[in-house]
């Protein structure tokens, strides 16, 4: 056996050591982005989730004007935390529709009464079927939909104050 082969096990050990060390030191990334960004929104019809807002279907999201689709639930704490940011987006001219995941009308009404209602239409997705069809992995999430009903951007997690300009920018881009 040639000389260099003696070093092979040590070399392999160091390579694996480096691999595992980098895996341990790298921060954990658990965000699963939807692969539906860039594709048309799946066809759906959902019943109304709140007493004072109409129901939502995929046709309502292809009106020629870009819109936001917020995925929320009355049982979701970060969804309450992002309520002021959604209000700010609405005041800045964004049109927002919503889908309430695994929810009940009385709970949605109570949630909106407490945290404010920035939504034009709210659909009820009792079995997460639209959520799964859109490749969304949790609540809250916000999708930017262009005027033709194509998903152009996905925001995962609650919208913080610093995210508002980015989302407005994406809406503007979608309108071009």
């Amino acid at each position, binding site marked *: 056996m040639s000389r260099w082969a003696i070093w092979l096990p040590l070399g392999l050990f160091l390579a694996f050591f480096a691999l595992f060390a980098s895996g341990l030191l790298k921060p954990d990334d658990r965000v699963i982005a*939807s692969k539906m960004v860039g594709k048309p929104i799946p066809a759906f019809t959902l019943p109304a989730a709140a007493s004072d807002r109409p129901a939502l279907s995929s046709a309502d999201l292809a009106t020629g004007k870009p819109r936001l689709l917020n995925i929320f639930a009355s049982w979701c704490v970060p969804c309450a935390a992002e309520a002021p940011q959604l209000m700010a987006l609405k005041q800045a001219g964004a049109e927002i529709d919503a889908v309430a995941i695994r929810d009940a009308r009385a*709970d949605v009404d109570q949630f909106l009464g407490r945290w404010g209602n920035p939504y034009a239409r709210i659909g009820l997705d009792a079995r997460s079927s639209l959520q799964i069809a859109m490749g969304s*992995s949790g609540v809250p999430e916000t999708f930017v939909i262009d005027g033709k009903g194509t998903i152009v951007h996905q925001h995962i997690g609650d919208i913080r104050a610093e995210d508002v300009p980015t989302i407005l920018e994406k809406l503007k881009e979608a309108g071009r």
Partner: protein
Amino acid sequence: MRTLIALILMLFAAPVLAQSALPPAPYADRQLDDPRLEAKARDLMMTIRCLTCQSQSIADSNASMAGDMRSQIRERIAAGEDPEAIRSWLIERYGDWVSYEPTASPILWPLWAAPVILLALGFWLMRGRIRRRKASS
């Protein structure tokens, strides 16, 4: 006595931190009546990754989203859909990440090649040893 009553009452309390007030989807925790279809659904559910508890399959997870996915998979299999078609439908939405079954995509070629390469390396080392032993004897 009072403690006992309190403890018994606690048994009936709704979990405060439940993820959702809704009852689970119809087939989230109920098997299909046809055992052949249920086996098909189970094999698929064991290899679909839960989005909430990311190290579990949806068959193992108690997350409500996993329950909704199980129910949807069972209903679609009962309606005659092919398990692999459902898998690719999910991969289209969540990427290869969602499936525990390795695919044939180029990024996994080293994985498929590894056994062949390791076997070849083993034979090569063994041949060297045998030759040396012959030479010394």
